[in-house]
């Protein structure tokens, strides 16, 4: 088993990893930026190193200082969490070069899956159904030609993309040129890679993803699916649930099977997620995330599996602690992301100092959070304050429990998404289940537009 893990992250996921490590008897090393000095992830780790000032490029992405902290402290592994360096194949390689175990899949798998067009081609070869689309486009002319063949509406996507950035829906030929230019500029700005490809737009799909785990012995299991269709207009997830509701048993099984064969095709190790668009019984592979995801807790509570612990075990060279047939699905879980954002201002991030913090608790409620009253939310990082998970014997019970938990979620000092999430819990369409990814936009249009 590993002895000491450097946690190359901050916020709630740093705490999550810290817990999993400590429960395994593994020491932890935190890194932090100057404005994060008072953060809980710094206080709860066994050691901590400041690695730079606030801006991410100089701290949480500062590979030399992070590696140096790992080596000085005698860590034998690095857990990247999500975001930051989690899907940076080069970082995973450098870790290996310095004798550090990167807690994640192999660098070449990260690289292949991180390039969306490459991943899609790879999955296509593995007979995983993918959205009809192109490879990397040479220029806007190629895009015009391809879009005509795919038939409008189509979707432009950055091959290095993520988090909804570098993505544009194009409904008519006249929109394509402008969309190409702006998507390319956005991708260039965000990922330093402006390459785009084109896909047929699937109308009103659901976003359903399958959690997989693979160990170094070739064992691969899935840990069920998650429905993440309640997304902000930017396609960032806001509310997730497991299992997906209103899904035909055959479709569910197909998703699981596809995910397993996809993971096997790339000899996947560690925790990963295959994201699909689902429209009726049609299933299209979108992308694979080669990291632990924000919404992993809902899979944990319904399947009673500690995914971060499995990641650490796998990285330690241990086999998976369970087989596929050991897994059962116990009820239903919902996660709401409580972000420091103003839903009425198009989810503009809100910086500030938190006052009056009260987070929910009790039977069937799990909270993953790093906040406390007095915490200053720096402007540099993502706006996630807390993940509230409600677990119930049925979906209805989970919804009611979440409603009650959100009523108890009091965070003063910044705008949050708590009230919006609560409105969703009381919405008839959401309660009926099976909403598509445009749900929130339609639901919260008045709130989101600020009127």
């Amino acid at each position, binding site marked *: 088993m590993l002895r000491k893990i450097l946690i190359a992250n901050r916020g709630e996921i740093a705490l999550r990893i810290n817990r999993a490590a400590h429960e395994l008897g593994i020491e932890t090393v935190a890194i932090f930026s100057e404005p994060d000095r008072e953060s809980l992830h710094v206080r709860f780790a066994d050691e901590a190193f*400041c690695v*730079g000032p606030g801006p991410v490029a100089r701290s949480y992405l500062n590979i*030399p*200082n992070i590696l*140096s*902290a790992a080596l*000085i*402290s005698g860590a034998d592994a690095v857990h990247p969490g999500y975001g930051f360096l989690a899907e940076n194949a080069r970082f995973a390689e450098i870790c290996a070069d*310095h004798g550090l175990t990167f807690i994640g899949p192999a660098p070449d798998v990260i690289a292949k899956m991180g390039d969306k067009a490459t991943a899609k081609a790879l999955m296509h070869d593995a007979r995983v159904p993918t959205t009809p689309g192109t490879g990397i486009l040479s220029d806007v002319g190629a895009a015009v030609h391809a879009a005509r063949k795919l038939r409008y509406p189509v979707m432009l996507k950055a091959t290095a993309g993520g988090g909804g950035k570098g993505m544009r829906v194009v409904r008519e030929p006249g929109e394509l040129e402008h969309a190409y230019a702006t998507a390319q500029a956005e991708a260039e700005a965000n990922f330093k890679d402006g390459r785009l490809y084109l896909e047929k737009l699937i109308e009103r799909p659901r976003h359903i993803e399958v959690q997989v785990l693979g160990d170094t012995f070739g064992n691969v299991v899935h840990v069920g699916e998650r429905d993440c269709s309640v997304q902000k207009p930017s396609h960032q997830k806001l509310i997730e649930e497991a299992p997906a509701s209103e899904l035909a048993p055959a479709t569910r099984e197909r998703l699981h099977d596809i995910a397993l064969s996809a993971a096997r095709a790339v000899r996947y190790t560690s925790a990963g997620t295959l994201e699909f668009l689902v429209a009726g019984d049609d299933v299209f592979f979108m992308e694979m995330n080669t990291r632990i995801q924000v919404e992993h807790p809902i899979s944990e509570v319904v399947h009673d599996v500690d995914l971060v612990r499995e990641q650490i075990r796998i990285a330690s060279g241990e086999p998976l602690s369970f087989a596929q047939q050991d897994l059962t699905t116990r009820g239903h879980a919902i996660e709401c992301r409580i972000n420091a954002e103003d839903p009425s201002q198009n989810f503009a991030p809100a910086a500030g100092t938190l006052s009056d913090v009260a987070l929910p608790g009790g039977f069937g409620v799990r909270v993953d959070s790093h906040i406390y009253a007095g915490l200053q939310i720096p402007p540099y990082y993502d706006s996630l304050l807390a993940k509230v998970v409600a677990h119930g014997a049925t979906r209805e019970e989970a919804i009611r429990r979440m409603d009650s938990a959100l009523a108890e979620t009091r965070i003063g000092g910044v705008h949050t998404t708590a009230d919006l999430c609560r409105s969703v819990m009381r919405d008839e369409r959401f309660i009926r289940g099976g909403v598509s990814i445009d749900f929130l936009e339609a639901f919260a249009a008045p709130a989101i537009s600020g009127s």
Partner: protein
Amino acid sequence: MDWELILERARRAAEFCASSGLARFRVEEDGLEIEVRRAPRSERAPSAQTGAPASALPSTNGIRASEARPLSIVRAEFVGIVRLARPAVSEGAEVGGDRELAYVESLGIRNPIRASAPGRVVAVHVSDGEAVEFGQALFAIEPQ
């Protein structure tokens, strides 16, 4: 604490405040907090304007610090192991602005640490071979 004692302390704080030209002075100690703030000149009572002689100043570190020139703090930019220059600069040493005081070894690379300005080293905060983090104070220099 005795209220008489509190007022006595506050009186001395007020005198100190007036004589040092401070606008505000706060002391917190063992659960007792005293804060005095001088009224703008136009509002002052005559008695306060006469002030106390400078010799009556209670000498605290804060006052001496504020009389002195601000120190220049040399900090680590890299996470690594600090190696002091040889011969090591010690407290009291006069150093030039480009003098290499130490280097921080990080991933096998030597990152030199230089005095930011010529002056006198008033504190060496690290010892040779110590691990340092970003922003950690290594030396304090009183500029000439």
